[in-house]
């Protein structure tokens, strides 16, 4: 009988786990939808900005963010990890990718970490930033300002963003994107356009906009991947609990049957003895 009670208790605890994983899945799905739609709105904005930059057809000139430095001695890595765990291999595979990247780096390197998960898991970061679950343009702007300052101060000659690139809901793969120095699109045709106040200021403003857009799109892509990874992980966790419950129920029925059989044979045995 003790066995029966133990099995019943296990079923109960698995059921409550299922409840948790199911609700985490729903939350992740809602957040995924939110970041995905923010992503598509951001893309239309970034597309327009890129189009304007193309139509300006400007050369990099002496824009401080486009000019390549003669010597690139220091590189700053900006690592975007998740805000929480429980999202499959999302954080760990990114961290592994980053460690390989950093060990193969000969230059002096700095590390900035974005995301709450990195707070406890990653050591040796110069600075840490909190990024919300659905990053806004304002958050991207603040971060861009910090990174731009780091670059112009000469503390870094190159800034590389390391994040999980979003392929689909089921697959994300770690990758990098160089933020600074910025590479301008080539082959733009300069039309007959009035520039107000002048070409240099317009280009400077556009470069600023493009940098912000790059950061914002990376933040959104990373977060979209995180929510997708968590949703996938929680879906399979919920499926596993279903399976476990079915197995345990079967085991419970076996045990109950065995108990009944024993009881009957005891009664029959007792009656025969009289």
């Amino acid at each position, binding site marked *: 009988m003790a066995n029966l009670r133990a099995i019943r208790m296990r079923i109960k605890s698995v059921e409550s786990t299922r409840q948790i994983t199911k609700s985490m899945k729903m939350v992740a799905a809602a957040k995924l939808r939110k970041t995905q739609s923010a992503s598509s709105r951001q893309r*239309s*904005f970034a597309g327009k900005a890129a189009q304007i930059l193309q139509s300006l057809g400007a050369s990099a000139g002496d824009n401080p963010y486009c000019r390549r430095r003669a010597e690139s001695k220091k590189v700053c890595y900006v690592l975007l990890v998740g805000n929480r765990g429980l999202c499959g291999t999302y954080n760990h595979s990114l961290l592994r990718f980053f460690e390989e990247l950093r060990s193969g780096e000969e230059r002096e390197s700095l590390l900035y970490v974005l995301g709450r998960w990195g707070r406890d898991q990653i050591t040796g970061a110069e600075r840490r930033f909190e990024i919300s679950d659905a990053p806004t343009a304002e958050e991207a702007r603040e971060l861009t300002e910090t990174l731009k300052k780091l670059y112009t101060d000469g503390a870094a000659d190159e800034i590389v963003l390391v994040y999980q690139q979003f392929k689909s809901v089921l697959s994300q793969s770690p990758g990098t994107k160089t933020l600074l120095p910025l590479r301008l699109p080539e082959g733009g045709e300069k*039309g*007959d356009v009035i520039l107000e106040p002048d070409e240099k200021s317009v280009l400077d403003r556009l470069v600023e906009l493009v940098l912000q857009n790059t950061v914002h799109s990376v933040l959104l892509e990373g977060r979209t991947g995180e929510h997708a990874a968590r949703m996938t992980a929680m879906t399979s966790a919920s499926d596993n609990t279903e399976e476990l419950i079915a197995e345990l129920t079967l085991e419970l029925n076996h045990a109950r049957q065995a108990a009944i059989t024993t009881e009957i044979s005891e009664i029959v045995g007792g009656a025969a003895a009289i």
Partner: protein
Amino acid sequence: MDAISLHVLTGDGPVLEQTVEAVNLPTAFGSIGVLKGHAPMLCNLEEGVLRCRSSQGTLRLFIGSGIASVEHNEVNVLVSAASLLEE
């Protein structure tokens, strides 16, 4: 009379999409008016109030800094922030 399609966009999404008759853009050197048939132009925008007039009345938007492009009666305003000012 409304011949200009105006798009006000921020990184968080479009704020206003409307066909209007005239747009007034705030720049560092005063405001620039755009009417139908304006020559192609790129201009830096500073924080200020953007006005647009259409057959339904005049709208005012408070915008952050950014850039505007005018081409073929289409005005694209890309700014850091924008919100409609109520009358």
